[in-house]
């Protein structure tokens, strides 16, 4: 697919922003100025001030001489960059690849995007109308190369759309400044009477290199498409992404659902073709007022089942606030995993295998309440009861070791051992009776002790001597004594209940 780029030029970026913030400045001539070498230099000029003959690079004192009523505002360094970044973020609704072109432009890689708006002309028109609607004075052009689009946006007179392969024709009549050259080089070209690109494109390359250096040739090649140029997108492009612009702003849940289903179907079709399934998925809604609403889901197992994914999103759709309406829907799958074809053959791709069904059920729990609620445990090689099992990381993970069954373990374990009062006949004997929660238990039968030492490399503390005891009513408990008698008064705890 041939590459297509849009270059957007903000002619009065910071001053337009000022007017947007303070509408009373609309017709007031004002400049943005910053100190430079001990004097105030004009950094940006409003349209009204431009009409008075004030231009960029003048000293504020001179401007005041021309027009005494001139208002001067401080130009904060970096404000243009911040503004452009925000605008680039907004432009993500038109294409996933947007780059900032300092000091006053944006570059959009629109390859394969324009047809969604019904062609390049309506596409460009839509971008311009929207940005102008926000009060920015912009020009834009679309071309095969970044250089040509950039040149045409700033200097073009004929048409903003340069057809594929025609960038050389469009460039010929433009001034050399359209090639993004350095000021020194431009001055030299001007001195030699080379006022148009056409006057030097046919010169021998050797001569051009000798006189002007490699810079000129590189820029020329980039504009003509003979040399590739890369841009740095503000967001790395997600490879699995589907977008759906809507004709009219959508405000209803039904509308959102239809859009989501349609996007999921296209995305899952593509995933099926590439034998992949998604683990996380983000659904973004671009609102008319520039806000972006998004909901995210995750699956416990790579999935491309439309019905299931839709169900996961369905719980979260009510959290999307459409306000005045949503104009673009975007579905991204940042994490995808392979679903191997052998799995497909063994299980069923339609999602009827028992593992998939259970995974889908758990996804629904995770979607509604949270992933932290679901636990599965595997044995861990520790004697310390609290550490004798560990949480499994995935549904497929298998136990690496066997569960220990050689010592009795209670079916119920208290999350934290609770202190009890005991009466013990002689040291190292099981207790005769114990008080737990205000109730006295007479120990009739007892087993033990089972000594469990602290794992000193993990935790410091005293060892535990566990006893399993049975009281007169037949209830069975797991008690332990912490420490030796020799080391003072050992404490007794209850830690669990046997079945």
């Amino acid at each position: 697919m041939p590459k297509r780029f849009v270059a957007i030029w903000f002619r009065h970026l910071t001053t337009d922003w000022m007017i947007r913030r303070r509408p009373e400045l609309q017709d007031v001539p004002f400049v943005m100025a910053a100190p430079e070498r001990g004097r105030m230099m004009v950094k940006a000029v409003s349209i009204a001030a431009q009409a008075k003959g004030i231009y960029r690079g003048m000293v504020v004192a001179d401007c005041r001489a021309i027009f005494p009523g001139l208002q001067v505002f401080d130009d904060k360094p970096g404000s243009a960059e911040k503004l452009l970044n925000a605008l680039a973020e907004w432009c993500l609704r038109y294409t996933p690849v947007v780059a900032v072109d300092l000091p006053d432009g944006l570059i959009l890689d629109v390859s394969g995007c324009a047809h969604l708006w019904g062609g390049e002309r309506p596409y460009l028109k839509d971008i311009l109308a929207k940005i102008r609607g926000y009060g920015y004075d912009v020009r834009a052009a679309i071309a095969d190369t970044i250089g040509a689009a950039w040149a045409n946006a700033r200097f073009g007179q004929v048409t903003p759309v340069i057809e594929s392969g025609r960038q050389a024709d469009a460039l010929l009549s433009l001034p050399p400044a359209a090639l993004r050259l350095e000021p020194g080089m431009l001055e030299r070209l001007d001195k030699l009477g080379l006022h148009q690109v056409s006057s030097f494109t046919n010169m021998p390359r050797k001569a051009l290199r000798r006189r002007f250096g490699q810079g000129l040739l590189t820029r020329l090649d980039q504009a003509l498409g003979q040399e590739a140029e890369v841009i740095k997108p503000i967001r790395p492009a997600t490879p699995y992404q589907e977008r759906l612009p809507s004709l009219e702003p959508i405000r209803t849940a039904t509308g959102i659902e239809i859009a989501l289903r349609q996007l999921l179907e296209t995305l899952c079709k593509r995933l099926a073709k590439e034998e992949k399934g998604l683990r996380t998925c983000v659904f973004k809604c671009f609102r008319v007022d520039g806000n972006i609403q998004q909901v995210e889901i995750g699956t416990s197992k790579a999935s491309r089942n439309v019905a299931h994914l839709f169900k996961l999103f369905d719980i979260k759709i009510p959290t999307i606030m459409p306000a005045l309406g949503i104009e673009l829907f975007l579905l991204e799958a940042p994490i995808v995993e392979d679903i191997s074809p052998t799995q497909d053959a063994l299980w069923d791709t339609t999602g009827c295998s028992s593992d998939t069904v259970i995974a889908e059920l758990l996804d629904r729990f995770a979607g509604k309440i949270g992933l932290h609620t679901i636990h599965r445990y595997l044995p861990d090689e520790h004697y310390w009861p609290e550490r004798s099992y560990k949480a499994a990381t995935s549904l497929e993970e298998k136990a690496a070791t066997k569960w220990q069954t050689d010592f009795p373990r209670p079916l119920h374990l208290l999350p934290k051992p609770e202190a009890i009062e005991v009466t013990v006949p002689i040291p190292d004997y099981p207790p005769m009776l114990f008080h737990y929660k205000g109730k006295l238990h007479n120990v009739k039968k007892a087993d033990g002790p089972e000594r469990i030492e602290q794992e000193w490399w993990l935790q410091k503390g005293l060892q535990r001597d566990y006893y399993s005891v049975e009281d007169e009513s037949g209830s069975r408990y797991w008690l332990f004594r912490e420490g030796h008698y020799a080391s003072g008064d050992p404490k007794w705890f209850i830690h669990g209940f046997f079945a």
Partner: protein
Amino acid sequence: MTLLTKKTDVIQQLQKEVLSLQGYKRTSGSERLNTGLGPLEMSFPGKVFPVGAVHELISATVEDAAATNGFIAGILGSLMRQKGACLWIGSKRTIFPPALKIFGIDPERIIFVDLYRQKDVLWAIEEALKCASLSAVIGELSELTFTESRRLQLAVEQSRVTGFIHRYNPRNKNTVACITRWEIKPLASIMEEGMPGVGFPRWHVQLLKVRNGKPGSWQLEWSAGGFRHITRTIISIPEIETRKAG
């Protein structure tokens, strides 16, 4: 004489119809679950432990709760021998996974879902019971209204999943649409004469209600990986109770 046999035939036929109307499907021979409960199974309709139904178990104290979960785990062991995973849903989980091994369960095949709100627990239990791939669902929930229990019953009628609702210390023991109501209490274990130590877990199992069956009470012991009856004593139930249950 012929009239009499006809009469019993008719009654049996009618009983079958009533059972199917109540959502109880008779388990076929291949589906028959060997729980090892022995004589206890005689109390159930069709003399087989009802799978694909919701059982209600009530416990009052923490000790009873442990015994109740032990009894559930014993039945679960035979349920999970056949297929799949099991979901254990509750708000205050006390189960110690390694201990499940002695009840013949692979603890890694149990998925624990820990939720805070009772509403969420109920929702999760219902969703899980609708999932036919699970072998069983255990819900720990203290309060359950009749309507809620009916929703659970309708869910299992479709999916044939066995559900256990363990109600710990409920405010009132209201009627629910579950097929059975159990109460399990621990019993003192017995050792060989003169031997020290604690014996096998022993329970006093009370089947308080069973739809179309006969309630009763038994003493069971879990030993050598299965249930063992100690003595069989069926508490005589007033005639009126049986009729209500039937």
